[in-house]
């Protein structure tokens, strides 16, 4: 017999339409809970990491509220199938099922033709973590005081080049679920890694990452994440709104910490 740590997962999350957009095409999921109604205040949750936990953000796109349909289809399917998210191939299968579901819906409902969505997910398990993303919704990790983007933006090279030289966020995606020129099969980015006993991750849509640079987010997380996740989320949200809030804003802040040691059976 030996001992193993029991890990606790604390989460604070908020999803808001921002100042400019009339509707909210973003959607967040905290394990089995999928946001169904507009949120007015952030939510917080606490989990024991004795089973896999999934956190996800999707940023839908397409006019006439079609973006909402796409993000909802994607998130719901991924949440339903979350038990299968083990290893890169399984993740790719689930993501592609969501991709096909969106395409099928768009064919059946011509008003939603061309709708698409990004997705970024983080699954924590007692024995490790898996992350994945398609599109430009992001996953960051805070470690040793530095914030690092783990997800890989699906932005075409020419757009990245252009955006860098014009010092603006990229506007064109090279991959998303659904979309006007859908890929036959999506290759989500992702990795499976060891789970540290202490750690902090941020999932967000471009409504946050386009208006706040990494140093700003890093400074807020560094100062606030250890004691008050909720306040940290609100502060980030507030900064995004003060920067104009041009897009929907989704923030999911996840913190893992050690609760106690217990006997391994």
């Amino acid at each position, binding site marked *: 017999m*030996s*001992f193993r740590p029991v890990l606790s997962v604390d989460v604070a999350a908020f999803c808001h339409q921002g100042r400019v957009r009339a509707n909210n095409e973003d959607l967040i999921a905290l394990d089995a809970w999928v946001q169904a109604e507009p949120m007015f205040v952030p939510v917080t949750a606490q989990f024991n990491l004795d089973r896999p936990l999934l956190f996800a953000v999707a940023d839908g796109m397409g006019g006439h509220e079609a973006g909402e349909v796409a993000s909802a289809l994607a998130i719901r399917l991924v949440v339903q199938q979350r038990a299968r998210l083990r290893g890169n191939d399984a993740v790719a299968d689930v993501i592609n099922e969501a991709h096909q579901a969106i395409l099928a819906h768009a064919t059946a409902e011509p008003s939603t033709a061309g709708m698409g969505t990004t997705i970024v997910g983080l699954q924590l398990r007692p024995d490790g973590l898996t992350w994945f993303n398609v599109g430009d919704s992001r996953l960051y990790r805070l*470690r040793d005081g530095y*914030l690092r*983007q*783990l997800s890989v933006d699906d932005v075409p090279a020419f757009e990245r*080049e252009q955006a860098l030289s014009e010092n603006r966020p990229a506007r064109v995606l090279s991959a998303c679920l659904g979309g006007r020129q859908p890929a036959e099969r999506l290759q989500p980015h992702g990795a499976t890694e060891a789970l540290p006993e202490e750690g902090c991750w941020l999932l967000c849509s471009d409504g946050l990452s386009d208006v706040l640079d990494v140093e700003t987010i890093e400074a807020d997380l560094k100062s606030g994440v250890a004691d008050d996740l909720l306040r940290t989320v609100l502060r980030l949200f507030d900064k995004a709104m003060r920067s104009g809030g041009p897009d929907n804003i989704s923030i999911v802040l996840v913190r893992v910490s050690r609760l106690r040691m*217990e006997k391994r059976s």
Partner: protein
Amino acid sequence: MSRPPPDHRLPRVLRRRGFVIERQLRDPGAQADLYVVRMRSGGQRVVKLYRPEANIDEGAQARLVELDSPYVVRLFESGLADPENVWFEVLEYVEGGSLADLIRREGPRLQEERVQEILSQIQAAITFLHTRLQIVHRDVKPQNILVRSSEPLSLVMADFGTVSSLRERSDLSRQIPRSVAYSAPEEGRSLVSYPADWWSLGMMLVEMLVGRHPFADPNGGLLEPLEIMNRLARDSVDGLVDGVPERWRNLCRGLLRGRPDNRWNQQQVTDWLLGDSPEVEDEPRGLFDYRPFAFAGQELWDRRQIAHAFKANWAEALEALGRGRLASWVRDELQDQGLFERLGRVDAAYQHPEARLLFSILELYPSVTPALRGHDIDEPGLARLATAAAAESPAGEGPAAPSSASAVLELIYDQGLLTSYADHMFNPWHGDTDRRWRAQMRELRQAADILPAGAREMIAARIPFAAATGLAVLCGPNREASLQAAYEALLPARARALAECDWLATTLHRIDGAYAAGRGATLGALIAVVPTLAPLAADPARRTRERQRQEQQRLGLRRAQQFGLLALVGAVVWLTMVQVRVVMAEAQRRGAVVQAVSFDSAPAIPGPEPDNGVFALPATGKVVANLKVVNPRIELDNVKVVQVGGAAKAARCEIPLYPPEGPFSCDLGALPKGRHRFKVLLNDQKVREVTLVVGGRKQ
């Protein structure tokens, strides 16, 4: 002419054959020394002795030996000289000097007819190397082309110190110092193949036709490598052929294409020589199709530049690495997937951010001298670092500055970086030094165990200093002499100490033991702590206090023991404080070492092996030993912890598939109060002995 260098510079094997040094040739690079020697027969040869750090492709060398070619300087033999352990070559002596001398004599701008002659010679030579021998020269430049005869012109290629054989590998990453002014732009990216030599030919042609090297600076020298790189990156390569006569322009443009795939090779050069005009691929933009890595106010284009800039700007480098800027640049701009994955592995493998930075720098550019916070940690660097740390004021006046030698040494010790470095770079010296360093520190702690509490605390404060002194002795043998002096200086105090103070006498005996056994490092570490102890021993009032404190401790222990017995009899699980004293025995067995031992007992927080070797953690009576094994060069098929004497119970550890070195956890079960000795066995071989003293302090 100056006096010839003494012959003892030649390896014995050559001296025996009667080789006598006539003179030293001007050093063509940093890799080797060249001597003109006379043989018994009267003939002349050139002997080339490589420096130890030179990187030699023995397969390619073997193909050059005894090759009688009109294009290649004759290499009569090459090999590793015994016992000097020096790689040597015996080469043809070419009297006519190098092409660089010829350019100096006839130039700087050469007649076009002359250039044409030179071109056909070099073209044939490069073609011969590539097609017949399948080697890339990698350092084609006027200094490395020798003139066998000047009328009619006959040129031979020389200096094969940097050649790379392409039979074994198509993608080469051997890092070799070479002349940046002639080397192809892909050199910095480590993707080097045949086209690299054609680029060098292009640079030489422009130099001879224009009378000036394209990268010449206004003072007649050459531009700095960084500036050369920036020019290539920024400007179209077409600018390199400015001033080249019209007839030659296409040839030079064809040879000076930034992308190896676009560059002309022997086919197009032959066609051009025959009067054809092969097509030149358009490359209107700067050479690099990627953005530079912006770092510390600089624009950096290749891995070597970044590695050096990281070393020089440690704090910014930690930030760039921590925020993932390096990894995303490698992935998105350099588009080097292999490097990206290796950086990812480093990121996952090391806990400490500075360890990650150290090994990321080594992934970027493996031949860079390893360094931490600006201090080199290669063999000589480590000796300097330890000596500097030992000279810094001993601990006690607050924490040392992060860049101080002692702080860096502490980081190296705590993170086990020497062993990590040894494993990462296959460098046994660092691993061996680390093992000896730790063994010496264990010996020091054992010595400290017998001291009274007050003295132990003072020693604890002194341990970093002792660690530095010990390491300095390990790395620099010349420290032994000063240690001996320090040892002898202790002698007068001895008689008094032996009479007055038991524990100081015991410490001095240990010092004697280390001295007698020739364990210089341990001696150094022990001597480093003595200045702290001597005043303590000399103060009678303090001695009395020490004695009282020891007496109190003994009483307290007895009371606690009685209480602990009661607790056991009542079969109540008490939280007890386990004091664990780890006695390190012979730690090394066929290369596998138990690096760390720690003990858990719920709800304990397992920690690293504490500096003073004493574990203290609350326990429910169940104790788990955690072991970390390093260098498991043997296949581990069992790891056990066996109690010595008493019940002789054995606890077997689970062997995880990955990582193979553990950590292993062995459940030792409930331990009654008292002393327990355990053996740690790897594959049934005892590698370490551990003593646990279970105390009775109630929480």
